[in-house]
């Protein structure tokens, strides 16, 4: 491809994408799903959970037991900032992992929910 054609293609791409803003934001680290299978109910201790996944983001006390809460947030935001018209949309979803411990500090239950896989770069602000 000649230099003139390359320059023309580059200019067209620049013109077509001018005013486009693509932003991505995350909070925390993605939860490693393969590690979850290594948490054995009735066997894995609190210390082992910490060494597997790391320190929890929050520790909650419920029903006289400790609950470790790990979370991860993912936000995707495309925007179109034109001279006269602006569209901005942001889609935020979260993953949450709870490890419930019994009074002896042994994992009793693991509850995990992943939503960030469905986070999308959606520009059109109308509709669901």
């Amino acid at each position: 491809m000649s230099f003139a054609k390359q320059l023309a293609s580059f200019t067209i791409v620049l013109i077509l994408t001018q005013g486009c803003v693509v932003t991505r934001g995350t909070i925390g680290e993605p939860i490693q799903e393969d590690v979850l299978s290594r948490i054995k109910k009735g066997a894995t201790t609190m210390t082992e959970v910490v060494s597997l996944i790391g320190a929890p983001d929050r520790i909650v006390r419920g029903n006289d037991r400790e609950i470790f809460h790990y979370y991860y947030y993912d936000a995707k935001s495309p925007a179109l900032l034109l001279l006269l018209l602006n569209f901005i949309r942001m889609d935020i979803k979260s993953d949450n992992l709870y490890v419930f411990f019994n009074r002896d500090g042994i994992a009793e239950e693991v509850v995990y929910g992943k939503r960030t896989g469905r986070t999308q770069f959606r520009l059109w602000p109308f509709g669901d």
Partner: protein
Amino acid sequence: MVINVAVRFLSIRLVVGALCFLLLCAGCSIRRVVFNDVVTLEQINFIRIGQTTILELADHIGAPDEVAESEFGVVALYNWSDTKSAALDFGALARLVLPYAPTMTLNRTGITPEQFQVVFDPQWTVRAYGFSRRTTDEPVVWFWPF
């Protein structure tokens, strides 16, 4: 010759139409922030008080965003929100012809945080549940602030 006139008339109409559309959109700014998925009544139909466990709940609607202790027991909270904001800047048109862009903006933002709460007994089965509040669906473009 007749065809040429018709084509020319069509393209003039197209240009005028596009200009009118741009004038209507001038200074429009539409923003939307969606946080998490909505929990609907249909999704929670399966819940049976005294029977459904926290694991079954997580299988159906995912893990809660928050777990907190209350005097009635442990509460699982599912949060979501749909924030809509629209603005109309009447000074935007002046940017096309003036070096200075005056600002005269009407803006309206609606933040609708919603919550689904589930209270558990000590055996982690559902004791009670409910929505914090259900808001009506606001339009995306609604910039009149008064």
